[in-house]
């Protein structure tokens, strides 16, 4: 049975196609002003890559903050459940799933089937989400993709306030004026983010293994900070940004009667 999962996030739309439990294609697009177009394009590309037509799909499930914007989806699945289901399917030992996307961070405590037992979501400020690193990379005047590797070069920990993006940005500016090496500032940024995410996740009982999914899982600097602050290993599946879409596809399969 062929099914699709679509994750409409704040920044990207991601599509995953699954055939009898196997992931056969994935595709993503930046969410522009024309959101419906971005969704259609990503969907079309994923179908093409899989050599399928829309009619070949038995079921399509949407997730993400824009899940109601997918006109051709059969139903919806919440972001919380989708990330947990996808992560536990890829890392069966995971019992705590941390998902950090562009605008939101969340943590889930799950059972062996990937069913959510408890969850927390960050509140209000983007200081615990991907857009925070974007703002900080801008303040450091470096490309976004460099901030992670740069922070790995640092040997020094500098405390930083990450309760609020605006305050953090002015702190970065102060550090730049004090001629603090950029790698130390980059590490301070990731440490601050990690500690914010962990303080949120600790509201759950953190049960190992811990899996990290979402776009931020690609940032090596953040991952390093998270491991150090958590003082435990953090497992990351391949292509972590697609995990919620994959979770939605698994839900689609089970809703269409194909089991999970």
């Amino acid at each position: 049975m062929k099914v699709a999962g679509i994750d409409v996030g704040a920044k990207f739309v991601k599509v995953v196609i699954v055939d009898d439990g196997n992931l056969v294609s994935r595709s993503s697009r930046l969410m522009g002003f024309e959101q419906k177009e971005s969704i259609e394009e990503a969907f079309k590309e994923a179908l093409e890559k899989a050599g399928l037509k829309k009619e070949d799909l038995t079921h399509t499930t949407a997730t993400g903050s824009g899940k109601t914007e997918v006109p051709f989806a059969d139903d919806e699945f919440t972001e919380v459940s989708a990330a947990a289901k996808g992560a536990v399917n890829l890392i069966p030992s995971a019992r705590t799933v941390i998902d950090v996307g562009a605008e939101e961070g969340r943590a889930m405590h799950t059972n062996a089937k990937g069913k959510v037992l408890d969850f927390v979501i960050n509140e209000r400020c983007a200081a615990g989400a991907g857009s925070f690193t974007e703002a900080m990379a801008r303040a450091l005047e470096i490309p976004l993709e460099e901030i992670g590797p740069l922070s790995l070069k640092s040997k020094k920990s500098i405390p930083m306030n990450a309760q609020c993006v605006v305050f953090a940005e002015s702190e970065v500016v102060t550090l730049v004026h004090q001629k603090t090496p950029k790698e130390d500032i980059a590490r301070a940024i990731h440490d601050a983010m990690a500690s914010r995410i962990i303080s949120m996740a600790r509201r759950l009982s953190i049960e190992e293994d811990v899996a990290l999914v979402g776009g931020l899982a690609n940032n090596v600097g953040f991952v390093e900070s998270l491991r150090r602050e958590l003082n435990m290993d953090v497992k990351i599946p391949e292509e972590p940004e697609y995990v919620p879409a994959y979770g939605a596809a698994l839900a689609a399969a089970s809703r269409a009667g194909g089991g999970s």
Partner: protein
Amino acid sequence: MADKYPTERLKTWNDAKDIRLNYYKDFAEAREKGGIRWAGGAWAFDAVPAGLGDDVYPLTGEPYGASTAFNREFSDDCLEATEKYGFARDLCSYMRNYWGSILLNKYTFGGEFPKSDFLWTDHICCSHAKWYQVAAELEGGIPYYCVDVAVGPDEEVDENRIEYIVGQLHDGIEWMEEITGRTYDDNRLIEAVKNEFRSTSTWAEICALNKAIPAPLDEKSMYSLYVLGTLMKHSKKVVDFYEELRDEVKDRVERGIAAVGNEKCRVMTDTQPPWAFLRVFRYLEKYGCVSIGSLYTFGLIGLWEVKEDGTWGPKTTPMEKGVSITSRDEALRELVKWNLDKPEWQHFYSPKYKSDMMIRIAREWKLDGVLLHYNRGCEGLSLGIAENRLALQEAGYPVMIFEGNMGDEREFDEARTVARIDAFMESLDMTKEA
């Protein structure tokens, strides 16, 4: 899909609405009738000023703050007015709506803000201690009397502590006589005190009827009913209303009438809701989820006791126990003892009391989960709420938290809360009906 259970509109609904609106109208028009106006907290010993006569009209601040919050535009004006005046944004939002009304000289129910003849209150939380002190100043220096009730949880209360409060009430009566020039009538006090015992015990009886499946009442409707007890629990009007409502709810239980026809899942909430967004409760119904109430709706007004079978039921009134109440002192003493046993007064001293009561409700009202409002607008009732969450989870109840503010709509994110409800319902295996 057809509903599982029959539903019916409450017959007493319009009466509740009328009592509430007349209460605010009577307060505004009290002077024209030659009457007296007083204002104070909903936790105040409101039976006491009743001894001044039948033409004495109260205005309790918290329900006024809630009504103001419901009117988002006016509430925003009030909140901005207090901020402009220099008050911090994280103070009690009921209090800020109230102060804002004074500053703007606008009454939520129309016209100018009616100035009280005196202020009569008590302080159970830190905001209470300052609310009416500031109000007295903002209103140009009106007489103000505050009773200190912080004598500890009920299990620690002894004769000395009761005496401490009774003594303040005796002094308060002399003070009222002095500032109003009226002679105090003990018989009116005794009647008001007995009314309070009956109304608050009957409200608990009504809430206990909600243990039934399907629940005859949902929390959104209960807000419009319990509020009468926060306005004037000492009044005969409220006693009569609650007794009629109790009979109606009993009848609903006998006939299996549901508040939510597709009831499949039962939850409770906690603390005051974000008043400007009560539609969130209607959203829950799409999942067949009914909120049966909360410690807040049950225990702010309701008085409870553990019955012989170990379950919670309405507290036996002193009259039912055959206690004689024939003098001012006896009336005040019984009134103080009664109030100190109020569930919502206990957890100001430790979250443990609140957790125990919440777990009891979860068990006896057969709940599937709990929705906790991390209410930034009320330091009093949200005190220790994170501890309550852990205790409920340890007791095996799934908990969802959402952040908000009962009286400041700027601090509530409706879309995110709805997304959280979706995730929580999904984790409880509930599906949304089309």
